């Protein structure tokens, strides 16, 4: 049985990876999960300098999911390169570094610093709904998507995955803009913008008022967007949004994703990623699928 998939020339032992921001840089979950079993670990977003993130409360539970407004707290690229990359290097898994920034220059700085590291792929987050500058501001305008993609590509040594926002009228427009800018792959979806109000205290549940909505509840939107994007561009797609079981992961593959990321599910099932790896194999066995690549985009 062949579970390997390839993204922009990088071969993953299986299509299962972690979603940025839900798995740290792997160290915390590494106590419970064998990182060697994952196709890739995608790290929390890292910027050129340390970011303190947003005030608390940063998360709220909602029906079938959660809102977060972490605000991209991160130690900055220096600490990251010194500490987190060497940590991940110990494992037989691919390293995908998620990059955030407030300006194009910020992104470029991080990307350049990563050039001579062991990072296998770069995932550029232009879709974080929780920061005032950068983030989603880039991800909701096709011209901005194309421009930042082009600029990042000019400076990147590794292949570049553009991570798109679902908070748009037409995801195919954004996907095509990233393709036009030279992206090697796409990740989608980042979180939907959501809000929760505490009716007893009459306040917002999050200090930031709005937050990014993730978890099983968002899956139908994510599957739809992956399907639309996969049928609009020729790039490999990393699908995510509500994946918590192997069935969910397979749904994304059938919709057109080449690989999948598991995010919020880690919080309620720390063993989710490896259970999904096992579950995909069991499905392939059951239906006599020799090569996982046969599943990609098989439902049209």
């Amino acid at each position, binding site marked *: 049985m062949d579970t390997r998939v390839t993204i922009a020339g990088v071969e993953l032992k299986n299509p299962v990876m972690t979603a940025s921001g839900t798995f740290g840089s792997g160290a*915390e979950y590494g106590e419970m999960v064998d990182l060697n079993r994952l196709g890739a670990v995608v790290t929390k977003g890292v910027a050129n300098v340390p970011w303190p993130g947003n005030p608390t409360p940063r*998360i709220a*539970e909602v029906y079938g999911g959660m809102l977060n407004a972490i605000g991209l707290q991160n130690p900055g690229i220096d600490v990251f390169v010194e500490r987190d990359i060497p940590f991940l290097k110990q494992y037989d898994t691919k390293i995908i570094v998620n990059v955030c920034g407030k300006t194009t220059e910020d992104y470029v700085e991080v990307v350049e610093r990563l050039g001579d590291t062991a990072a296998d792929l770069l995932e550029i987050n232009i879709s974080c709904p929780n920061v005032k500058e950068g983030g989603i501001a880039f991800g909701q305008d096709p011209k901005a998507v194309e421009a930042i993609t082009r600029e990042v590509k000019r400076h990147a040594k590794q292949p570049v995955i553009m991570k798109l926002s679902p908070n748009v009228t037409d995801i195919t427009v954004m996907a095509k803009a990233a393709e036009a800018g030279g992206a090697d792959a796409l990740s989608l979806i980042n979180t939907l913008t959501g809000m929760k109000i505490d009716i007893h205290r009459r306040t917002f549940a999050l200090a930031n008022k709005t937050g990014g909505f993730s978890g099983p509840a968002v899956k139908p939107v994510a599957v739809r967007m992956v399907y639309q994007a996969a049928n609009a561009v020729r790039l490999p797609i990393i699908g995510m949004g509500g994946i918590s079981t192997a069935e969910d992961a397979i749904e994304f593959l059938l919709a057109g994703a080449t690989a999948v990321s598991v995010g919020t599910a880690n919080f309620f099932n720390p063993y989710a990623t490896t259970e999904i790896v096992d579950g995909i194999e069991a499905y392939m066995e059951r239906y006599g699928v020799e090569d996982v690549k046969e599943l990609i985009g098989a439902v049209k």
Partner: protein
Amino acid sequence: MAQVKIEAVVKSQEMLADGVYSMVLSAPEIARQAKAGQFVSVYTKDSSRLLPRPISLCGIDKEKGELRLVYRVAGAGTEEFSRYEAGEKVQVMGPLGNGFPLKEKKAILIGGGIGIPPMLGLMKALDCERTAVLGYRDSQLFLKDEFEAFGPVSVATEDGSAGTKGNVLDAIRANGVEGAVIYACGPTPMLRAIKAYAAENGIECYISLEERMACGIGACLACVCQSKEVDHHSNVHNKRICKDGPVFAAEEVEI
């Protein structure tokens, strides 16, 4: 070893006061490693509610492999827990957090409201002179008698129906409670007052904090508090309550 997520079995469930329950879980893999001041993440069975409910360890029985959780019904999740009967299976992750440092000095243990239960675990774990100061809403003095087995106990009640009327600091002053180290858990305003009190009186002080949590193990950065020093993890001033805490030296954090 490290934290694990397991299926625990409810051994017993008992109401201690209005809306306050004591639940004993059989969870040997967690009990074996646990210490006072740590907590567990408890998951609901209702699949619309996915995040963990962090609950402190009130008691740890390593021999029987049991954990005791004492909790207040605060919303739908804890309400669900309160309906569990012996035999019910529950998903639990732990042990989580750092726990209290066990100092060999005369200790004052201060618990306010639902901050009382973790102090009982510490009361048992300490092996030196110790006194407890417990703040309640009213005369339902849950767990008080259990503290008394280990040392003197002072009580404050908001409504004055038992002990000193007022808060825990009022009780400390009223009873002339003294010690060389303070351990405290309770609502933030109480902790803030205790921090100031300890600083004024030059007493070493450890406080246990709370924040909304998603991962419970330090990965998601949901549960931060502001720390005085740059934290080693994110290189900013944000310590993670679930991993770097929940217990902090009072001067370490801004609350």
